[in-house]
């Protein structure tokens, strides 16, 4: 990119992508902001063509003061936090196990990664009908085998159930990233620490874990982005009942169930704010691992 000419050529080349990406982001964002200040109830005859009534911050106040708001924020944070903890812990463990030489390593690795390829809707349905069904599910049979009363997973233990399903989906991702990180560790470092008198656990704590810190950070940041917006898993299992209503799900209900576009849009703006708060906290806590 040395000459004037090559610089302007580069700009020309990048322009379409930049315009497209910017448009993709800006149009929905501006529309959401626009609707959030309007009364827009399509079933009551409000149309874009007929002009919408400006209501100021009324939608924001209503969404915020709704009794579902704080529980939904709490649910969102619990799901995100729990899934992060479970996937990072188990992912590290699995990565260390898969790094060991063993028979059939290739097949085992593909099997471990497989859940990631299953669509969220499908995997949630599989869990709902084949595992967690209180009559025919595998877990119910397991409980009966030990003469226990089967758990009504999705109604009595709804939040843990959702966390379990989502963790199962995201565990492969964490494992995959952490496995590559484990493999990139210089074996001489481990041998050096072995000679320096560090037993296995201390080797893990002082050498392996610091080496993994960057990969763990990436797993946490990427997963958070996707976990804040999980929807399908809730939609096909509990439908937002039994305390599993996340902020995303609440917005969905406002827009589609109550057909109140303005109220839902205000909720969308809250979701953006929540995501940013989470992002700021995360960057504070783990972001320094990405330096150098």
């Amino acid at each position: 990119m040395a000459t004037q000419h090559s610089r302007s050529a580069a700009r020309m080349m990048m322009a379409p992508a930049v315009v497209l990406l910017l448009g993709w982001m800006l149009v929905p964002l501006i529309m959401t902001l626009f609707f959030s200040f309007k009364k827009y109830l399509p079933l009551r005859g409000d149309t874009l063509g007929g002009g919408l009534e400006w209501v100021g911050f009324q939608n924001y106040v209503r969404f915020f003061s709704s009794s579902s708001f704080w529980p939904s924020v709490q649910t969102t944070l619990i799901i995100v936090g729990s899934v992060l903890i479970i996937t990072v812990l188990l992912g590290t463990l699995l990565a260390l196990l898969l790094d060991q030489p063993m028979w059939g390593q290739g097949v085992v690795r593909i099997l471990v990664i497989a859940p990631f390829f299953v669509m969220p809707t499908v995997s949630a349905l599989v869990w709902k009908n084949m595992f967690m069904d209180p009559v025919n599910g595998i877990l119910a049979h397991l409980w009966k085998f030990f003469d226990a009363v089967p758990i009504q997973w999705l109604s009595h233990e709804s939040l843990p159930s959702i966390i379990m399903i989502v963790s199962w989906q995201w565990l492969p991702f964490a494992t995959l990233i952490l496995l590559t990180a484990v493999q990139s560790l210089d074996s001489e470092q481990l041998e050096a620490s072995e000679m320096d008198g560090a037993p296995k656990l201390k080797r893990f704590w002082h050498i392996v874990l610091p080496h993994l810190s960057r990969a763990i950070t990436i797993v946490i940041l990427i997963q958070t982005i996707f976990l804040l917006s999980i929807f399908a898993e809730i939609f096909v299992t509990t439908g937002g009942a039994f305390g599993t209503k996340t902020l995303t799900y609440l917005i969905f209900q406002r827009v589609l169930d109550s057909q109140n576009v303005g109220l839902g849009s205000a909720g969308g703006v809250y979701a953006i704010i929540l995501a940013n708060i989470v992002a700021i906290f995360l960057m504070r806590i783990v972001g320094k691992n990405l330096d150098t």
Partner: protein
Amino acid sequence: MGRIVLDQVSKSFGKTEVIPPLDLTIEDGEFTVFVGPSGCGKSTLLRLIAGLEDVSGGKVSIDGKEMTEVPPAKRGLSMVFQSYALYPHMSVRKNIAFPLRMAKMDKAEIKKRVEDAATVLNLTDYLSRRPGQLSGGQRQRVAIGRAIVREPSAFLFDEPLSNLDAALRVGMRLEISEMHKRLATTMIYVTHDQVEAMTMADKIVVLQAGVIEQVGSPLELYRAPRNTFVAGFIGSPKMNLLTGEEAAKHDAHTIGIRPEHITISNESGTWEGVVGVSEHLGSDSFFHVKCDGFEDPLTVRAGGELQLSYGAKVFLTPDTAHLHRFNDQGLRIE
């Protein structure tokens, strides 16, 4: 203290035998160099001593104590790795202190030992830096620092200088030799560079395909190589090895003559030849001379002043007092 004895030690990876059973004694305080071409098993042998690899057979004892089944940390040895193997997320201070922390030494003692090591190795100004912020030579020093704070009974070096540039290598070579004189601790040093072996060692162990070809002091190996392999490996440039008619004249299958034991002349001599490539080092010049009847050109050393043009006709005279004779198995004939 650090007398290391290998008794019929062998190593196989699966069905391939890398090191057939061998015996070796390394005396306390000795600087021993394992030298050999790539893949000769010298690093494996070092790792067997360190305990990083399990022996397939035989016994390793250190200071008279059987150590074959003892884990690496308990053998009282320190190792400096080829890649230095510094811990990238720790400062230099923490890197050096790591073995002491693992040994649960008290804080004041750790601090004192780390600072002593840093002073000796000129690292005092770098103690708070990370390995990534150091030059190759400094990293090498940190690795050595981490090895010496434990006050081991022997140091193991696995090609420690191969990642350094030529000038730094010469400097570090001297530093390690000096450290050995000062500490008087047993050191085992693995290298493929025969110059390092010659300059640093008290005792050289020449290895080929896992077999010890010869053990001796640098000059013993230089003066009386036990076979053609050692003859060709020790000494720079390589010894000229001649077979056929010329060797038969001396009742041998192969004769060897070092470049420095051949005189070159314009007028007369035993062999007649044509000058090929010349290498002028300033103090010395090496000429590659193609002689009639010999397959390979002979390397000849002459003073730095001598100038010979490509294709010039010269005469060579070997110093028969320094002629090495080998039989058809490649073994030395006295």
